[in-house]
């Protein structure tokens, strides 16, 4: 194993590594033992507390309904935010200042504000001015907050996707006589959508994680919110409940992340496209307010 930072190892370096490995293993083992000991002391490791998760009742009563709400909110947000984001992304590229400037202001504004603030605002808005069924209100509020934030991030992804295409594409399209909106619809957007697929899938991870805010703060009955009723019903198995819920989130998001990097690798290797890709790494950059450097360069 060699890297930028160090040479292939000789006998002395290998010996040193064995020493480091040993020391680190001892440190990790001490940590694990401490965690085990404190869990054991508080009786959190008793089989009674973990047993419910190996039966069907906990899953059908608490986890699955919560998970459904989480996935519903995430899917709704993505479906609504995508076209909005595309609209604003294209508007930011407009030649007309009166379209470009307002779109930029909106996008910068919503990227600068925490999702939770948007959700709380949405919740109050629905309860004060709109006749939404109080049972549905948390879902509406969560989706509103997620849409406002993610549409502006997706707008940046769309913009970066279009900008990532070689200029020859639009020049050639104009040369054969297409109008501006035809160039956008037939030439640039289809290629940009391919280029930004990995980024869109990565953004899905952010959305799934952010739905948990609704469960914690806005009484949205999602997977996160399932923890408290579940742990009080099964005799205060807080640690067990948190572990199971966290594992579910990890499995979903890890699957999405892996899918995104698989897509990215496939697109980068692909011969048919222009090779432009907005990768998962670019999303963090595009999600922050302010100007951006070129995000299309691969690692």
């Amino acid at each position, binding site marked *: *194993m060699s890297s930028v930072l*160090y040479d292939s190892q000789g006998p002395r370096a290998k010996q040193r590594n064995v020493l480091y490995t040993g020391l680190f293993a001892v440190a990790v083992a001490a940590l694990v033992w401490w965690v085990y000991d404190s869990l054991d002391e508080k009786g959190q490791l008793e089989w009674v507390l973990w047993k419910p998760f190996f039966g069907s009742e906990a899953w059908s009563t608490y986890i699955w309904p919560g998970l459904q709400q989480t996935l519903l909110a995430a899917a709704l947000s993505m479906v609504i935010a995508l076209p909005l984001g595309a609209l604003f992304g294209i508007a930011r590229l407009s030649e007309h200042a009166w379209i470009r400037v307002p779109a930029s202001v909106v996008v910068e504004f919503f990227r*600068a504000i925490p999702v939770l603030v948007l959700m709380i605002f949405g919740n*109050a808005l629905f309860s004060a001015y709109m006749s939404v069924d109080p049972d549905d209100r948390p879902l509406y509020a969560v989706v509103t907050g997620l849409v406002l934030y993610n549409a502006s991030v997706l707008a940046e992804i769309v913009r970066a996707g279009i900008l990532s295409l070689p200029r020859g594409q639009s020049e050639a399209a104009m040369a054969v006589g297409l109008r501006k909106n035809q160039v956008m619809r037939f030439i640039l957007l289809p290629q940009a959508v391919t280029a930004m697929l990995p980024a869109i899938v990565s953004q899905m991870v952010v959305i799934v994680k952010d739905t948990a805010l609704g469960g914690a703060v806005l009484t949205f009955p999602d997977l996160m919110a399932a923890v408290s009723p579940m742990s009080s019903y099964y005799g205060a198995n807080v640690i067990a409940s948190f572990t199971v819920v966290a594992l579910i989130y990890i499995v979903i998001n890890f699957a999405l992340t892996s899918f995104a990097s698989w897509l990215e690798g496939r697109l980068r290797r692909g011969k048919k496209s222009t090779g432009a890709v907005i990768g998962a790494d670019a999303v963090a950059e595009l999600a922050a307010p*302010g100007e951006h450097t070129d995000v299309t360069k691969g690692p």
Partner: protein
Amino acid sequence: MFDFSRDYDLLGAFWTTVQLAVLSAIGSLVWGTLLAAMRVGPVPLMRGFGTAYVNIVRNIPLTVVILFTSLGLNQTLGIKLGSDIIETSNFRLAVLGLVAYTSAFVCEALRSGINTVPVGQAEAARAIGLNFTQVLTLIVLPQAFRAVVGPLTNVLIALTKNTTVAAAIGVAEAALLMKDMIDREAQLLLIAAIFAFGFVCLTLPTGLLLGWVGKKVAVKR
């Protein structure tokens, strides 16, 4: 209409937000750098630990992490982080959760920074006889740090926005005050505008300033 400042401690709430952000930023920079060092280092066990930590923590919602620090660590396991006052202990737990979560992103930013340094730089350094420490401190890290100012700024901004999650465990920061005010006052749009303005003031200048610095110091290739 503007008499909120008498009844509500707006500046105090935003000050708590800033404190959360700054303390967590320092903590996650330290822990994230250690993680990055493990991930790029030559010891396989440390690499494995770093990779596992980052992949697990990145995929858990921050809300779950923060609530776990309160419900799990504090109330179930009795970890109080050296304070019997609930407010102080919750604040510290929130910082702990934010550090644990954000350091995974700091680690990834630093690692990608190290990856931007061309292999030839380190190879040339080794060819003229520098040892590992010298390669790292004289050649690779100076270039890597200059490349990560931009990505780290994004992490810092995300962290500033993420401090609102501490509202879930009752830390008296801006989002909690906003919820409180909305529950009690009628001027919804005004309250929302005040808090939106507060967060724009915290995040946008940071992004613009540090983004500019990042571009300024980045190694042109």
